[in-house]
């Protein structure tokens, strides 16, 4: 990762900072993330309570605004409980593993264009290199370890179940998330965050690649374990999930990591789809909107919109059932995203080769596809009805099939009806 790679990819502005500036930026990002977490927590509690016709925290500081800070202090002064059954070393390590990657992913998020800090021109981004979005994916996949290990090392049933659920959930939603990036890379021709923002100087990718954006937003809620996908910490089922056995500052670290991850996925969505730090349309007419320190306002504005949506979702939607949730990830998001990538690629190729514009391509691709989908849906529907009728017809004639009659259980063949199926059918009739 030297001058050569950077220069070849137009990333020459990165990696030139003097050490003091690197340190300043790193500390700056750290402080920003901690502050944003505190603000997000208080915002969440306030917004959710307004949505539920409550007042929310209002004791500490003006309007309760220092509540999350005080909560942090309170957590630090709480007794640290390490369960007897815990695997000590891993139990200590897990919050660190969850927390550090959460911070590190922010290293490649662009906050703004080139500015001058104490007379040194530097981009408002800690660093960037040709594969920085991949870096985010890689680091966040390390973060999953924190959760799995927390669940495993606690030596408690609830924690183990929560950790397992969480990891299965995160790996299931990482696939659609990773696939939703592909269309962006295709249009940007790059995997570096700053170049993707640069590629959105004209049109934001949300306009061009709306399905990708929608898939990403759904996957990011699943990735961050937030409502309605907050199954790893489903209180009614698993108490606290993977952090059931954690207390004091170790618990605070998990909490911090969760909120930073929320901010990170929001920042990534902003960077990839909403033009990064670029000003939204009416403001962008003002010429200096995209220069100097102003873009940080637009950037954090967009992030807070995402955070608000996160909170809104939590205030609105009930939690999904786990099997429905996994089904949605594997059977809906995954095929839709692969199909969408192939459509985008075809459209892009037809533009590159035959010179079709977007409207023509859309007409030629989307209309037949919609018709095809519709036909297949009708086909499936007819098939379902017919098979249901068939079962009803034969139901009275054939004997019940007992799968456990022999030594090994045998699944029923087509046409054979087991007892439970029969009773289910009878219920539907009545």
């Amino acid at each position, binding site marked *: 990762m030297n001058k050569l790679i950077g220069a070849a990819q137009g990333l020459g502005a990165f990696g030139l900072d003097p050490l003091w500036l690197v340190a300043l930026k790193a500390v700056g990002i750290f402080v920003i993330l901690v502050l944003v977490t505190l603000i997000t927590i208080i915002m969440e509690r306030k917004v959710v309570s307004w949505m539920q016709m409550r007042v929310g925290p209002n004791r500490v500081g003006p309007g309760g605004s220092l509540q999350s800070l005080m909560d942090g202090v309170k957590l630090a002064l709480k007794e640290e409980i390490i369960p007897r059954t815990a695997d000590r070393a891993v139990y200590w390590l897990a919050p660190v593993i969850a927390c550090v990657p959460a911070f590190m992913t922010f290293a490649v998020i662009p906050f703004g264009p080139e500015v001058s800090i104490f007379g040194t021109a530097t981009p408002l981004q800690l660093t960037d290199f040709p594969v920085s979005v991949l870096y985010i994916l890689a680091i966040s*996949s*390390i973060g999953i370890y924190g959760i799995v290990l927390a669940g495993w090392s606690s030596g408690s049933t609830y924690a183990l179940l929560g950790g397992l659920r969480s990891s299965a959930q995160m790996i299931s939603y990482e696939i659609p998330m990773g696939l939703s990036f592909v269309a962006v890379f295709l249009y940007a021709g790059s995997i570096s965050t700053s170049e993707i923002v640069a590629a959105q100087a004209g049109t934001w990718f949300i306009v061009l690649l709306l399905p990708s954006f929608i898939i990403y937003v759904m996957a990011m809620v699943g990735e961050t374990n937030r409502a309605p996908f907050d199954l790893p910490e489903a209180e009614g089922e698993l108490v606290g999930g993977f952090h059931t056995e954690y207390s004091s500052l170790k618990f605070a670290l998990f909490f911090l990591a969760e909120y930073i991850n929320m901010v990170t996925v929001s920042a990534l969505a902003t960077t990839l789809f909403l033009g990064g730090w670029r000003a939204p349309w009416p403001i962008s007419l003002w010429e200096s909107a995209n220069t100097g320190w102003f873009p940080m306002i637009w950037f954090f504005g967009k992030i807070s919109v995402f955070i608000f949506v996160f909170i809104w979702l939590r205030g609105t939607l009930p939690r999904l059932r786990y099997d429905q949730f996994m089904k949605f990830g594997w059977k809906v998001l995954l095929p839709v995203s692969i199909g969408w990538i192939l459509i985008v690629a075809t459209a892009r190729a037809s533009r590159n080769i035959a010179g079709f514009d977007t409207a023509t391509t859309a007409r030629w691709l989307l209309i037949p596809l919609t018709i095809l989908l519709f036909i297949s849906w009708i086909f499936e529907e007819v098939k379902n009805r017919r098979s249901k009728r068939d079962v009803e017809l034969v139901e009275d004639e054939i004997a019940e099939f007992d799968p456990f009659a022999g030594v090994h259980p045998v699944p029923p063949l087509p046409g054979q009806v087991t007892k439970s199926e029969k009773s289910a059918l009878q219920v539907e009739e009545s």
Partner: protein
Amino acid sequence: MVIAFWICAALAVFGALGMVFSKKAVHSALFVALTMINLAVLYAILEAPFLSMVQIIVYTGAVMMLFLFVLMVVGVDSSDSLTESIKGQRVPALLGASALGVILIGLLGNITMTNIGFDQAYVAYDGNIDALAGLIFTKYLFAFEATSALLITAALGAMVLTHREHAEKPLTQRDLSVLRFKSGNHPGSLPSPGVYARHNAVDIPALLPDGTMAEISVPKPLAARGAIRLIDLASKDEVQALNRGEAVITSQSTDRVEE
């Protein structure tokens, strides 16, 4: 760069050794993850950023997750047993391993490596990723397409090994609720323990308005273990009195009066 290499190389070796010597299987898996991450850093030092990130995503993320799951299938807390199952194999194994080590050090120590054509390749292909794509999707096309066969095999194998066909159609949420009502059992949620009792502990049954104990209010596992605690008769009388509409001074409120 050289410093970074020595740090990461040492850590990678440490991870490898830790993997072999740790007793708990999950610790071993963690040490492998450490080795993988350090290998990724080594790739990054060798100017292969894409490979480095893929190393973390695929190995640390995916493969290690698989590993963890496998270990947990084996047993969440299982430890290695140190009994020698094949008698007298340790000494020859050690000798063989050290011989292999000597040979490898002797061979690899003599290799000197220089970057040949690195700079030209990057200039020709406009960077690391384009260079990779340019090679994978043209020159090594067949290998790339064959990878999909590998993936098919892997998924198929996992499917065959782990998937169990349902002997009967699994019951849906609807079926279950129908069955619950049909069976004539308590259809709703059970009374919570400790409601009319003098405690809110989960192992103390609730008192019904007539003062009898609702045994269904205590979780079944507790009842099976025989861990139900009974309430004293005094509170039974109190509840019965409450139910008749009489004013009752419970012992708790007496405490308060004394204050």
